[in-house]
């Protein structure tokens, strides 16, 4: 129920931008002589395919992350020894070329070391690793730790922003943060109060900060920023507060705003060209971002951008999805509500929208479209194509041409999805089943048994893709709901929801999640691992043909990438909603993951809920989580013993 997103709004802004340049002293590149990362990668040990550890002696001395300052992210993301962005690379495939840990020896994994963050609540995201330094973030109050991998994880520096606690009540679904970004010797932190901060990666000194939204209007920050060339992109959370979503590009050097593209509004706000911006190959037409709204409703229309961002360096396009339209009561906002629930492809330099695709017009279920876009190349009908693969909250997995926005495949990735029979491939519209349509049934009517629930068949937890198996590995939810919309009024800074829901497992089922392998060309599930609770952690696939993910009970699991056979499990101290990553240190491969139950899936748990219920409602479904795990914030690092 709740909001699962983190949402925001901003209503204001343009003129009221408050940004300032702080202490610049730490900004000079004191490590200009350091080798570029590409050179480092070339001399780093090559993992052996047989699983034996490569000799660690070849590794050059890397002091701190700022040694990487001369290399572009396009180069750095190709270095498997580091983990430079939340989803591993611009394509968001969360795939690593490391193969020391493989399907044969994964059973031998052990905990190498741990680190307590000292913060409770939900720990989404995961650490970045650059050379000998690991950067760990926390939920509100959004602490950042730089850990020295050469010195048993000793804290090199710590940064803790001062934030007004009044931001907490306007964060939907827990006080999560999905991680840091790195570029040019800087660490970028996007705080809950929407302040974007650039820190010197070597010292933790604040270089500049800029305010991206107004929390008093319900706008908050939860997403991981992404850097492309000289710009850092951040979105906004607050769809449950009537925030109008946007993606903003700031100059990495000083925080100056370069462009901002809104999800809805006139063309000057959405950065659309009526003739050149297309939807399924056709021009969107003038002011398409207001034409499907009644009156001024677009101004509080939602479509927030709290999920993930991907980038294709060849096409120079940034890809991301927009969230639900506000309010959750569809009867109060007639029309398609464009461009909420939409995949955007924007020019990275100018922000101009090249193409859009609205997956769920006139949302009636809270099926935000913010999940990550995985960019892969695959052969379709004998032709190699640049594809975008997206596992949407609405239960359909979309395969699209990422150059043109052409829709190629759209199939259910959980058979229980029932709100639509299929996607019409010509119009792109889901064919809605009236029985499961709250809009058709009307206000004050409880529409029962809709699958999936508002948290979607998959929420923000990012999937992974292995080019070795050609399969996508997807953490999913297996939850249905009853949904009753009712009238609400908009008040700035107050929740703007207008629906009550109850959530429960699909009929006849007793588990709430699945971890699946997916063929995005055929639109088929290859194998499924049922999980007791929703799988809320980001997956990792490696060249060792091992796939890793975490569970809400707290297990870190390793499974065979080809068969799904479980190879290893270890129970960490709290439920896992963080994203698994991998890196090397002194030539040895490690696996790292944050534990710390919370987020939407853990709300019942996070609320300390122990009361048994009638078996209806998310709480009822999730309450037994407390039988398995408790709150906690910890990083756990795994390795195979020498």
């Amino acid at each position, binding site marked *: 129920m709740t909001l699962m997103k983190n949402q925001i709004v901003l209503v204001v802004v343009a003129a009221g931008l408050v940004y300032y340049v702080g202490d610049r002293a730490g900004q000079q590149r004191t490590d200009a002589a350091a080798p570029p990362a590409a050179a480092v990668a070339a001399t780093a040990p090559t993992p052996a395919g047989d699983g034996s550890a490569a000799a660690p002696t070849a590794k050059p001395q890397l002091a701190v992350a700022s040694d990487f300052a001369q290399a572009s992210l396009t180069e750095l993301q190709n270095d498997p020894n580091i983990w430079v962005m939340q989803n591993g690379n611009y394509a968001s495939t969360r795939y690593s070329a490391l193969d020391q840990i493989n399907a044969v020896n994964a059973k031998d994994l052990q905990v190498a070391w741990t680190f307590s963050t000292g913060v409770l609540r939900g720990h989404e995201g995961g650490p970045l690793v650059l050379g000998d330094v690991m950067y760990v973030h926390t939920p509100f109050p959004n602490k950042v730790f730089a850990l020295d991998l050469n010195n048993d994880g000793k804290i090199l520096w710590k940064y803790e922003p001062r934030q007004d*606690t009044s931001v907490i009540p306007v964060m939907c679904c827990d006080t999560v943060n999905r991680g840091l970004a790195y570029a040019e010797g800087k660490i970028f932190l996007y705080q809950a109060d929407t302040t974007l901060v650039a820190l010197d990666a070597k010292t933790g000194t604040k270089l500049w900060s800029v305010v991206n939204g107004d929390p008093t209007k319900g706008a908050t920050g939860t997403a991981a920023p992404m850097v492309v060339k000289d710009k850092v992109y951040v979105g906004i959370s607050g769809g449950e507060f009537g925030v109008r979503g946007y993606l903003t590009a700031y100059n990495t050097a000083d925080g100056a705003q370069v462009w901002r593209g809104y999800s809805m509004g006139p063309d000057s706000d959405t950065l659309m060209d009526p003739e050149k911006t297309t939807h399924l190959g056709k021009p969107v037409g003038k002011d398409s971002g207001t034409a499907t709204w009644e009156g001024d409703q677009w101004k509080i229309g939602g479509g927030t951008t709290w999920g993930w961002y991907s980038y294709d360096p060849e096409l120079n396009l940034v890809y991301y999805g927009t969230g639900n339209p506000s309010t959750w009561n569809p009867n109060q906002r007639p029309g398609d509500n464009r461009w909420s629930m939409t995949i955007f492809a924007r020019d990275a330099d100018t922000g101009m929208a090249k193409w859009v695709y609205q997956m769920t017009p006139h949302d009636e279920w809270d099926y935000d479209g913010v999940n990550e876009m995985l960019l892969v190349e695959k052969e379709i009908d004998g032709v190699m194509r640049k594809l975008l693969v997206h596992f949407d909250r609405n239960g359909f997995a979309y395969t699209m041409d990422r150059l043109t926005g052409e829709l190629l495949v759209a199939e259910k990735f959980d058979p229980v999805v029932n709100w639509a029979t299929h996607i019409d491939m010509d119009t792109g519209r889901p064919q809605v089943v009236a029985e499961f349509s709250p809009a058709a049934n009307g206000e004050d009517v409880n529409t029962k048994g809709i699958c999936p629930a508002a948290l979607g068949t998959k929420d923000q937890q990012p999937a992974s893709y292995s080019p070795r198996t050609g399969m996508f590995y997807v953490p999913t939810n297996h939850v249905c709901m009853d949904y009753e919309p009712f009238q609400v009024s908009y008040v700035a800074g107050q929740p*703007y929801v207008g629906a009550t829901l109850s959530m429960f497992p699909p009929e006849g089922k007793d588990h709430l999640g699945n971890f699946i392998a997916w063929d995005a060309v055929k639109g088929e599930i290859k194998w499924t691992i049922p999980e007791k609770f929703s799988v809320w952690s980001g997956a990792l696939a490696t060249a060792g043909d091992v796939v890793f993910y975490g569970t809400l009970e707290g297990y870190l699991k390793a499974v065979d990438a080809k068969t799904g056979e479980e190879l290893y499990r270890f129970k960490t101290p709290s439920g896992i909603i963080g994203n698994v990553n991998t890196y090397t240190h002194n030539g040895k491969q490690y696996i790292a993951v944050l534990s710390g139950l919370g987020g939407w899936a853990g*709300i019942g748990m996070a609320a300390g809920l122990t009361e048994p219920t009638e078996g209806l409602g998310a709480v009822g479904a999730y309450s037994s989580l407390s039988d398995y795990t408790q709150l906690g914030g910890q990083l756990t690092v795994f390795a195979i013993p020498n």
Partner: protein
Amino acid sequence: MNLTSFPGHRRATAAQHLAAALLGGALFSPAISADYSSFKFSPETPYYVEDNKVDFGTYNGFRRYHSECHTCHGPAGMGSAYAPALMKSMEVLTFDQFVEVVINGRTGMDQRVMPGFASNLNVLPYISDLYAYLKARSDGVVGTARPPNFPKVKP
């Protein structure tokens, strides 16, 4: 007739909760009894329950709670790391104290912040409904699931 009526008279059993949950929605338009027709909210008698069905105000309180309050206070009103358990608060708060906190908010210790809802049109007009629902929850008369309800009575 299985008349339950007012707070404190009886606590619903688990079996009754289960029955209510299973039947919820199926019996959405029950006939209005003579007793319910004459029921009026007051701080002393905030809700009405009969055959596990609650008055419309209490039911509306359930809806409003989940729209406006649930994010902090949890799906069952059991609180969170930054918001207290309302089920406990409701045992001691008077109606006037409840209204005062909702209107003005409260700044407590640590990271606990209760925002003021004085300007929220989705809360203040329904504050007696919210009070009724939370009181019924605290008294154990309704569970965490959607309570089956009587239709609205025209004044």
